[in-house]
């Protein structure tokens, strides 16, 4: 049996989407130029890039070009850019290798409370095996999800800090962090700062205030299975894994996927401003209309200092899993940070750290294909969906 659908033809246009997909965080649809780049690289750069023949050298050249393009987009040197098999792998490697490289400086890791799970997990992993004195110092956030820059700076000046991590912005609630101030404090304290730009690259201008930067191809419309790690020259690190020709990510990554990821990132930079205002308008529509349409809703995240494409809210007395399913039945895909939607039974650590309602949470990420009609359709079905779910729990007039 063939695994290739005989009816598939690359020339035939895809059918119009019958569904509304509003869960683009780390999960955006492929940028049309990324698709083109992928096809091109599959033709020209399919070979393993470490061999001596022409086919291999062509693949190596495409990979170098991809690193060059990412370097240009983030403000780095080409040799400082590395492709990872995922964004999670990039974050794990960054925390582990910098912590190990600076083990003589100390064993404390400082992060905000709202970093991605991959950062917090890596910090716990590293400190758990580094001895009784090793600490993971977690700096809290305010009700909008913004970290306390002064508290973060104070944590950096404590003796024995190996590495610190602060996201550029939070992918769940959209709030932008005071990275510039924290990076200045980190520099003064001589502590390397890992900045997770996984929710921002391709959507917002990321300032060059970092020592290590990470990004997520699938978040900006590149292929999935590609992460980016950028390590400034001079940052001390030691590989925390066996040696390999690809020293940061043993075995390397798919060259065509990495190439397509770089093409997509460049394409995003080309129309960043237009996409920004278009998506901000859609997000503002959600932020304004949802509290008018649905009673007892809490909009989450900073109202203005935020990413252009992420919007989150929580509905009181609503089962998040039931609401996601109800919206799905109505043809709309959204994300949620509620405990009932995760296998762990734990609510989103981001919502918890902010002190906002964790149940009944809806998280929307819009990509470049999202239209005003999509958002209007969501707004049209949301009140009924919430009322249905509340009705199932007999909430009535509470």
């Amino acid at each position: 049996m063939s695994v290739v659908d005989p009816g598939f033809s690359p020339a035939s246009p895809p059918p119009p989407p019958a569904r509304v997909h509003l869960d683009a965080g780390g999960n955006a649809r492929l940028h049309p130029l990324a698709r083109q780049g992928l096809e091109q690289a599959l033709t020209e750069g399919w070979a393993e890039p470490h061999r001596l023949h022409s086919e291999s050298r062509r693949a190596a050249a495409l990979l170098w070009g991809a690193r060059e393009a990412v370097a240009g987009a983030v403000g780095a040197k080409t040799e400082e850019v590395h492709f990872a098999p995922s964004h999670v792998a990039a974050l794990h490697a960054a925390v582990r290798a910098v912590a190990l490289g600076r083990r003589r400086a100390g064993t404390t890791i400082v992060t905000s409370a709202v970093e991605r799970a991959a950062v917090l997990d890596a910090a716990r992993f590293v400190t758990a095996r580094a001895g009784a004195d090793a600490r993971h110092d977690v700096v809290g956030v305010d009700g909008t999800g913004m970290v306390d820059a002064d508290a973060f700076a104070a944590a950096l000046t404590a003796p024995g800090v190996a590495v610190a991590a602060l996201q550029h912005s939070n992918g769940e609630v959209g709030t932008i962090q005071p990275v510039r101030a924290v990076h200045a404090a980190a520099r003064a304290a001589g502590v390397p700062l890992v900045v997770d730009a996984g929710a921002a690259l391709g959507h917002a201008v990321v300032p060059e205030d970092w020592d290590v930067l990470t990004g997520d191809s699938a978040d900006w419309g590149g292929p999935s299975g590609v992460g980016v790690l950028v390590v400034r020259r001079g940052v001390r690190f030691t590989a925390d894994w066996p040696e390999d020709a690809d020293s940061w990510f043993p075995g390397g990554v798919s060259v065509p996927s990495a190439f397509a990821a770089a093409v997509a990132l460049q394409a995003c930079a080309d129309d960043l401003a237009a996409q920004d205002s278009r998506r901000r308008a859609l997000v503002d529509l959600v932020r304004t209309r949802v509290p008018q349409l649905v009673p007892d809703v809490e909009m989450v995240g900073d109202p203005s200092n935020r990413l252009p494409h992420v919007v989150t809210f929580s509905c009181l007395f609503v089962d998040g899993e039931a609401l996601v399913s109800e919206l799905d039945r109505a043809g709309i895909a959204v994300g949620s940070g509620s405990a009932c939607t995760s296998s762990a039974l734990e609510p989103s650590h981001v919502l918890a750290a902010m002190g906002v309602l964790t149940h009944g949470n809806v998280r929307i990420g819009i990509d470049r294909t999202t239209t005003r009609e999509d958002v209007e359709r969501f707004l049209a079905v949301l009140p009924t969906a919430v009322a249905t779910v509340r009705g199932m729990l007999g909430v009535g007039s509470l």
Partner: protein
Amino acid sequence: MVDARGLRCPIPVIRLARRAQDLDPGELVTVWSTDPAAVHDVPAWARMRGHAIEGSVDVDAADGAFTAITVRVGG
């Protein structure tokens, strides 16, 4: 007292809200819960409804640990 042990979000908050509805401003009500979301969601609900959190205690009972959160009903 509202015993919401073993119940998952958002049921503990709903049970608590039902109880608080019958109380006068200033009266106290305590909810017992094992749901990890309740420690975040009870204070968030109280803030949205104008109630105040009087205290939160982790209890290590013979039949399992739970959290007891006491709320003063707002007026």
